[in-house]
């Protein structure tokens, strides 16, 4: 049973700069990376394949164009997951890909996955957008069952047993393969690759394919706004007693005590 892991080239939101005053968002300057939860998905794929002796491949579709910088970053992100033990990677990227919405991307990914894999693992949400739409759409495109929020996965023949975490309860479901499953961060602790594995990962097969979204997107981002959070930002100074006293006073005046 071969496994595909969806890895998104996400903006590193921690390093994304926004200007509260002008509302400018410096997307071009921000680096990209594989999302943290995608490392969990990768870890799970590697554990499963180690047990079952099959192949596990990373599939990345980049939506940040195809500049030299973004290409390099995409390859670095893939090196990171390959070093964890995946066998190879497919990188789909091209100019104009940033126009692709989840509908188009799901269709492009399905092309890569149909007939080659029986299990697709993804993160419950990507690092930068956290919508979780893509794995769900991919499942629908492939006509496969979809289970999200997995905290444990066990393969039982042509089925997988998935434990998933919902708001008020935990559910154990049995899913017929092929299937798409998205995982949460609780599922495992991603291994930290060794240096030698990173060196080797750079030599693993990486198949790069060109992508340009064919249709008119169903969704158009009109604008990106910077949310204005007005905070007073008053630093209370003095010794411990004074500060505590002043803070209590301020909170009473705010009417929140």
């Amino acid at each position, binding site marked *: 049973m071969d496994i595909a892991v969806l890895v998104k080239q996400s903006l590193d939101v921690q390093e994304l700069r926004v*200007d509260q*005053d002008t509302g400018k968002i410096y997307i071009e300057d921000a680096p990209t990376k594989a999302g943290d939860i995608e490392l969990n998905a990768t870890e799970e794929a590697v554990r499963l394949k180690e047990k079952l002796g099959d192949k596990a491949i990373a599939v990345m579709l980049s939506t940040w164009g195809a500049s030299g910088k973004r290409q390099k970053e995409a390859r670095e992100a893939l090196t990171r997951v390959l070093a964890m033990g995946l066998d190879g990677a497919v990188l789909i990227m091209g100019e104009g890909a940033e126009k692709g919405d989840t509908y188009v991307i799901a269709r492009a990914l399905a092309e890569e996955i149909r007939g080659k894999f029986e299990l697709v693992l993804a993160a419950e949400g990507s690092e930068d957008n956290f919508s979780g739409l893509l794995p769900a759409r991919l499942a629908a495109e492939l006509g496969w069952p979809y289970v999200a929020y997995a905290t444990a996965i066990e393969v039982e023949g042509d089925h997988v047993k998935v434990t998933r975490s919902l708001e008020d309860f935990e559910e154990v479901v049995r899913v017929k393969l092929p299937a798409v499953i998205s995982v949460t961060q609780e599922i495992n602790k991603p291994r*930290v690759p060794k240096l030698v594995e990173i*060196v080797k990962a750079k030599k693993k097969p990486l198949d790069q394919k060109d992508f340009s979204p064919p249709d008119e997107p169903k969704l158009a981002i009109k604008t990106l706004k910077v949310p204005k959070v007005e905070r007073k930002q008053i630093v209370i100074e003095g010794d411990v007693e004074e500060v505590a006293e002043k803070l209590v006073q301020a909170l009473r005046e705010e009417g929140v005590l």
Partner: protein
Amino acid sequence: MADFDVIVVGAGPAGSVASYLLAKEGHTVLTVERGKRPGAKNMFGGRLYSWSLEKVFPEFWKEAPVEREVTKEVLGFLHGDRGLEIRLSARPRGRSFTLLRAKFDQWLAEKAEDAGAEVISGFKVEGPLIRDGRVVGIVAEGDEEMEAEVVIAADGALSFMAEKAGLRPRLSKEDFAVGAKEVIELPKETIEDRFGLSGDEGAAQLYVGDLTEGVVGGGFIYTNKESVSVGVVMRIGSLASKVSKISTAMWEITEKFKSHPLIRRYLEGGKLAEYSAHIIPETQFMRGVRLYTDGMVVVGDAAGFCVNYGVTVRGMDFAIESARAAAEAVHQALESGDTSAKSLSRYQEILSSGMLREFEAARKAVDLMEDERLYTSIPKIAVESLEHLFSVDGRPRESLYSFVRKEFSEEGISLLSALLLGWKALRSM
């Protein structure tokens, strides 16, 4: 057989230049950087004297992400809310550039990568791998061993590589200074206006005075393209012992510096883009450093090739030159199949016939800068004397000479020691 011909620890300017030169010679090179990416951790070194990098990449400034070429040098004295600036407008021999390390280091690392070096970031190296008293590789995090014919330690001021290989003594906090730096964004035109620059011209401005409250140190401003780097450098030994307290103190002093009337006008309306506090090596420990051993050489800050003038730090040009010398020696050692200490001693020979002389001269200047009076009495006297000279209020005025003499005696500096200070200053230049 070893995994690599060369493993370079650290992808700062020294590490990347050594990696580049050796990869270009056809050696297999692995470069391991601890930061998320090259330059990510190197906030300091906002000014590069170009002489050494020019030997590796002639006219590199045409291609590298440098900010501005320094053509204006300012020395300032601050006392209270008063201040005095001495401005030199000239293009001294030898170019120098302001730059932002995050961009610049990445550019250099890419050069190494393009030449064939494997550059891996976000990975910690614990120390050298030593067998039978010889360095044969590195021990990476998680006790992973990786072998190389030669290891180049370019792991910066705190170099555990050099320390663990027994090439330098364990350092105490007195061996370091701390620096705090902010990058403040301003429109290009505003920068050119306020600093009197045009085109790609840049300014480097250094300040001493009572802002550091008697501690050896001072403030600086460097102009970048669309931002200025502003900050302070101070001796660590003179500051409180707790690190959290130091960072608070650094922050407060930086704020004080920035709000001085003379400094404030340069920064007004600017937007804070980043802040960082950092450890900077002092020159003293150079005295206890050995540069090579069997299978390993030490370059850049790790070898102490860094001069702290009190108010500013010069290190990148020495780091690059040391890396170039090291690469040459390592290349010859690899070619001859002998990577023993004896063979690698060529590194020191190359340095002795060139850079070390310049480095020693630079260090002499530091001896002068260590005089604490430079940070207390001298700025006060300079500011007050000129203030006296320009004060006109209709009352009879003391002569400048007698005013200055009085100032010196108030500060407890005899005319003789003032002369000595001047003499030392002249000699060191």
